[in-house]
């Protein structure tokens, strides 16, 4: 690999590490995403999920409720992405009629 690529890689990694210092700590109640109201003044989603997930769906695992119920469209899209990946693999890698080793097609 050329020296330029290494320099690019290292500088980009250093940028990412530098950006990670700006993230809030885990469980920081004053972080923007954990506030009751967002910066624009609308009610925040995360506290609503935490309060109402069990009442809405009778499922103790909050992550499942968010994944499959509150964010159902998103999961449908993810599944479609997986199906598309499989179909593209089939289209690219299917057996062509050119012989690879001459004895078996």
């Amino acid at each position, binding site marked *: 690999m050329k020296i330029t690529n290494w320099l690019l890689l290292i500088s980009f990694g250093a940028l990412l590490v530098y950006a990670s210092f700006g993230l809030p700590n885990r469980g920081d109640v004053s972080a923007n995403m954990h506030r009751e109201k967002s910066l624009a003044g609308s009610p925040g989603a995360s506290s609503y999920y935490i309060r109402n997930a069990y009442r809405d769906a009778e499922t103790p695992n909050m992550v*499942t*409720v968010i994944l*499959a*119920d509150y964010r159902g469209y998103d999961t*449908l899209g993810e599944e479609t992405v997986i199906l598309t*990946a*499989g179909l593209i693999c*089939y289209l690219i890698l299917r057996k062509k009629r050119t012989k*690879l*080793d001459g004895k078996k097609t």
Partner: protein
Amino acid sequence: MLKYKFNPIILLVSRVVSPFIMIFALYVIFHGHYSPGGGFQGGTMFAAALLLIRLAAGFDIAQLQFKKILGTPLGSVGVLIYFGTGFLAMLSGGEFLNYHFLPFAGFKADELRSLGILMVEIGVGLAVLAILVAIYDDLLEGYPHD
């Protein structure tokens, strides 16, 4: 080139281990309501069990377990289960993917949502397991296997 060499020890151990992985994968899918897990993780583990047999027994023998031609259709069926759950809710008067409106009698609203989540997770698991096996089979396509 890939060359398959028959090895009875590897085949035996894989055949013993694979059903346990499948059971655990089903547990991960169906216990996703109560513990970490769900369709994506469980489907991946089920695919791992199928791929273990494929690696150990060779492609041709593994066709007895899961045929190559089943891959993409089962994945489509999984996506259709997800979509159909949402569409069923839409047909009976609600919004798309609003499980509150699923037409099953005798359930309260929160139980209906729980049931809808379960149906969706089964669809996701089926799609993921079929697509992963299909990708493996497609990658094997160009090589002279067995």
